[in-house]
């Protein structure tokens, strides 16, 4: 029965102070809109960066004379090198079928298989790929006499690592800043609307209202304003997604990247964030006025 009273109180105060409530609602709407666009973008960026980093590896080519026993020995040796995550073996026959599938005409001209057995050496972490390469070519020689060459893509690898690092860090920093700005912006708007009602709070205290008795209507009001703002943002995002993104997704892979957040999850996240930040913001902003 208390809840009914608090709900009526918060609806009454929203009606009376429509302008500040609307300002708070608009603030939540805009921040949630930005957040809703930003979350998938950051995820897509990170996903792209990670998949690029995942492709960083060292290729080890065997001599064409290598036997199956040689391959097994080299495989064992490779696995003992520090920081090696896994080793993939591609036999010369497999390599030939893969290559000829790409360019059948060229390979039809060949009578024999010119391709060597190959190991793809994947590092445990992309950053360690250069260390592995150094370990495979000690002093300019080869780890094993049956190894023909070790791929040398130092420059490319370095660049990839640097760029993807930068992208990930930038995205993280932007996310933190955006979340911080959202919280401050919403809290500030709420504080403004509370400031106009500080006398009311003072009177309530003098009549003998407990802190929580005063606080609940404000918290509920914050929750309502936050949820409505978030819902409106979700509606806008949903319309945009259906009208713009979905038709494009079929021929633009970044948007279709599977690692971005599902829309249903995004809805829940935005709704929870909007309601929670506004409710907690109202409750906390009220603290200073409660000290009578």
């Amino acid at each position, binding site marked *: 029965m208390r809840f009914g009273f608090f709900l009526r109180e918060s609806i*009454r*105060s929203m009606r*009376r102070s429509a302008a500040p409530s609307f300002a708070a609602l608009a603030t939540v709407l805009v921040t949630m809109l930005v957040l809703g666009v930003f979350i998938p973008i950051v995820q897509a960026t990170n996903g792209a960066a990670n998949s690029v980093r995942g492709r960083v590896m060292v290729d080890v080519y065997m001599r064409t004379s290598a036997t199956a026993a040689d391959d097994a020995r080299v495989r064992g040796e490779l696995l003992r090198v520090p920081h090696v995550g896994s080793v993939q073996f591609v036999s010369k026959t497999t390599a030939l079928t893969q290559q000829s599938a790409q360019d059948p005409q060229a390979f039809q001209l060949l009578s024999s298989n010119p391709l060597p057995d190959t190991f793809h050496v994947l590092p445990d972490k992309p950053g360690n790929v250069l260390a592995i390469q150094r370990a495979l070519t000690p002093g300019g020689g080869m780890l094993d006499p049956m190894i023909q060459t070790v791929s040398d893509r130092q420059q490319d690898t370095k660049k990839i690592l640097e760029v993807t690092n930068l992208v990930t860090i930038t995205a993280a920093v932007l996310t933190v800043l955006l979340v911080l700005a959202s919280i401050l912006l919403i809290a500030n708007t709420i504080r403004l609307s509370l400031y106009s009602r500080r006398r009311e709070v003072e*009177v*309530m205290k*003098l*009549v*003998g209202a407990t802190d929580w008795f005063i606080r609940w209507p404000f918290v509920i009001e914050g929750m309502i304003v936050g949820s409505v703002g978030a819902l409106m943002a979700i509606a806008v995002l949903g319309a945009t997604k259906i009208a713009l993104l979905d038709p494009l997704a079929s021929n633009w892979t970044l948007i279709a990247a599977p690692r971005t957040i599902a829309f249903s999850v995004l809805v829940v996240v935005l709704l929870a964030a909007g309601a929670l930040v506004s409710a907690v913001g109202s409750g906390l902003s009220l603290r200073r006025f409660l000290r009578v």
Partner: protein
Amino acid sequence: MIEFRGVSKRYSGGDVGLDDVTFSVERGDFVFLVGATGSGKSTVMRLLIKELEPTAGTIRVAGHDLGEIKRKRIAYYRRNVGVVFQDFKLLPARTVYDNVAYALQVTGGTRREIREKVPDILRLTGLSTKLHNYPDQLSGGEQQRVSIARAFVNHPPLLLADEPTGNLDPETSVDIMRLLYRINRTGTTVLIASHDQAMVDKMRRRVLELAHGRVVRDEATGFYARDETTREFARRLRAPSSRPPGLA
């Protein structure tokens, strides 16, 4: 009912609010607190509703040591003290009825209780026709009546009024004083801070005078007509200011 023992209050800026004040007020008393601005009247009031803490000394109200009431319990203590202010302090967004009802809602009053008590108290204060008006549609005297109704709707044993007639004309002031006297006659202890010397003299009630934070006078003004009716009381207040017989 109220007991101040060696109470001092120094504000953080170094100003002295009260300086070693000792007095007591019996249950059912009607007491005036007079003194110039800055003499400490409001400090006494604010100490009594525990808006301020004394620097030294103890204050007891109805047997409770105010210093021992925890922060969380202050709200519950305040429900036993009705407060009336010079500037009314009504909630502007609520009607007369809702302003008074709020004091009951705060204490967990049921709807039925509110429906019974609020019209009663508004009849007592003569506001029955203004139930659905908002405070800004009322005159100053009417607003003060609402504020008194709100302070008294819980029937607190103690009613504090800080300059209740400070913003009102003399005729309206008499009405307000009469209302406070009527409340006093129900057994409620009433403490009024005022600088309206003429009014206080006419009332012929106990007067505590403060100056620079000290009690400089504590006496009944004139003869003590404790049991006069409110009508007699009002007639006497409206009479032209004359020193009561028997006083030089």
